[in-house]
């Protein structure tokens, strides 16, 4: 197992180098290079900011030296200072914003698993039934519905018409004065819609995936032999078939990290949630390049980490992988 993890870790090194190279090239290939894009397009960038940038990128050095310095900075998560008026380090800003984004994404992953696996299995086992057809309709709608639009509709329904749920922020105005239980309830009410929506499209994909996995597994010989030796159908399905059908879900969950992160830009902007997605959006709108590059890089790291955890998780669950 240890050997597997080490080998898997070594495989990420070229990817890390590639990520840093692409973000380095991106900022250098931009018209006019990093300084002019920062100062021409951003009226707030002062002469002082310009000087700081020159120093940050070390533009007087040859390109490979610049890249080596960039790599060094990436390794220590030093993304420079934000262009915004407060001029604080990007890394610090991201650190403040990342917990809420990760919380929402982890919760919605949990939701995806809890709902999608039973739907997928039930549909596969009762293929062609009313439930199966209804879930197929749900899956296609889930793939096709713009989630930001669904968010608007739910805001109109639950926020405006019914007044049940708050539609912006992560806490009420009186949040600080609430007791612990009150705080938890208040936070939950604020996060309910964002978590539901963040998980929605993943839900459709995962239940479809689960269904076709299960259909695949049920056709295998060992299922036929389980039936042939007289096991009750329930045991065949939930003991023998399900275990193998659920396994690949770990991989899919890992692969869904980039989509969830991308989605958080939309949800956090709509629901005014002060997370990394909203910070990114604000960065794009104000052309705060150090911030943009910082979050882009962190997003790539998180994706890589998601893939890594998925592979290791799969290897833990399935001995065939770690020996193969």
């Amino acid at each position, binding site marked *: 197992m240890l050997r597997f993890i080490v080998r898997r870790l070594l495989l990420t090194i*070229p*990817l890390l180098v*590639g*990520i840093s190279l*692409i973000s380095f090239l*991106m900022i250098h290939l*931009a*018209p006019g290079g990093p300084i002019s*894009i920062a100062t021409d397009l951003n009226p707030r960038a002062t002469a002082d900011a310009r000087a700081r940038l020159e120093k940050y990128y070390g533009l007087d050095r040859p390109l490979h030296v610049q890249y080596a310095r960039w790599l060094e900075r990436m390794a220590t998560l030093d993304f420079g200072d934000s262009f915004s008026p407060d001029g604080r380090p990007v890394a610090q800003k991201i650190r403040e914003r990342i917990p809420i984004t990760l919380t929402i994404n982890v919760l919605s992953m949990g939701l995806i698993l809890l709902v999608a696996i039973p739907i997928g299995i039930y549909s596969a086992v009762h*293929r062609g039934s009313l439930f199966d057809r209804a879930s197929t309709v749900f899956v*296609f*709608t889930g*793939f*096709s*519905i*713009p989630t*930001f*639009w*669904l968010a*608007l*509709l739910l*805001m*109109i329904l639950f926020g*405006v018409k019914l007044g049940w749920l708050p539609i912006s922020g992560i806490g009420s105005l009186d949040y600080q004065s609430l007791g612990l239980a009150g705080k938890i309830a208040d936070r939950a009410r604020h996060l309910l819609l964002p978590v539901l929506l963040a998980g929605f499209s993943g839900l459709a994909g995962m239940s479809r995936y689960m269904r*076709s996995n299960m*259909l695949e597994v049920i056709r295998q010989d060992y299922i036929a032999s389980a039936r042939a030796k007289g096991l009750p159908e329930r045991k065949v399905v939930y003991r023998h078939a399900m275990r193998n059908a659920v396994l690949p879900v770990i991989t899919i969950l890992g692969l869904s*990290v*980039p*989509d969830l*992160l*991308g*989605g958080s*830009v*939309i949800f956090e*902007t*709509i629901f005014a949630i002060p997370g990394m997605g909203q910070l*990114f*959006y604000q*960065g*794009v*709108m104000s*052309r705060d*390049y150090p911030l*943009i*590059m910082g*979050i*882009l890089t962190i*997003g*790539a790291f998180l*994706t*890589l980490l998601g893939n890594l955890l998925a592979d290791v998780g799969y290897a833990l669950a399935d001995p065939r992988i770690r020996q193969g």
Partner: protein
Amino acid sequence: MTGSGGIWRDFARRLLRNRLAAAGGLVILFFFLVAAFPALFTSRNPDRIDVSVILQPPSAAHPLGTDDLGRDVLARVVYGARVSMKVGFVAVGIATAIGLVIGLLSGFYGGRVDAVLMRFVDIMLCFPTFFLILSVIAFLSPSIVNIMAVIGLTGWMGVARLVRAETLSLKERDFVAAARAQGAGTARIVFRHILPNALAPVLVSATLGVAGAILTESALSFLGIGVQPPTPSWGNILTIGKNYIEFAWWLSLFPGLAILFTVLGYNLLGEGIRDAADPRLSGR
């Protein structure tokens, strides 16, 4: 080529017999007509501002209501179809072209070429696509052309992997060996023997890709970093909808329905093509 005509006839027949796919195709056809001949569907000018009818709910004069500048929402939704159709097609065209070239090169030559190209694909896939799109747009400026280019340039990796896998398996087949034995050159083998046989999965992924590109464009326009007003796009009508969410539901409802139906149409058609191209997979 009579034999291949038969294959395509079978394919078309299977596709049309699939009711969902046919329905999807009809919806797409309808929105194509809307985009091509908007005047047939509305007599109003989508950009005409009329301050006397600001934020009117749907009525006989304005079937889908009016927006905050008194513009007719039906007209804006109708003309918005052009943006979605154009972005969907051009972006996917770019992505498919890049994916085909990289996939064919990688699969056909293998070895070092394959290793380098596929590592590049792996690296690109590490970046959350939406993050990548937003970053590039921050460096350029939001316009229809840039949006199409950026969605295309960040969306080719799946096609590349697909084409590579198809090419890898096709190049070992007997008919390719036979072609080579008859003295066919590389170009002829790739374009005449491998590419046509790899097209079905590419067509599926392109059809589903149009759906994805339309969704991405609408999200970008909704966030104000896509198609810029006054050009109407379904996404930027929804932005106004959000601003008036408390009293103008029609601004939020109708453009979203248009997106939903169009995207659903492409998804159903794409799945239908998949089933028709490989009947063994149907129902999966």
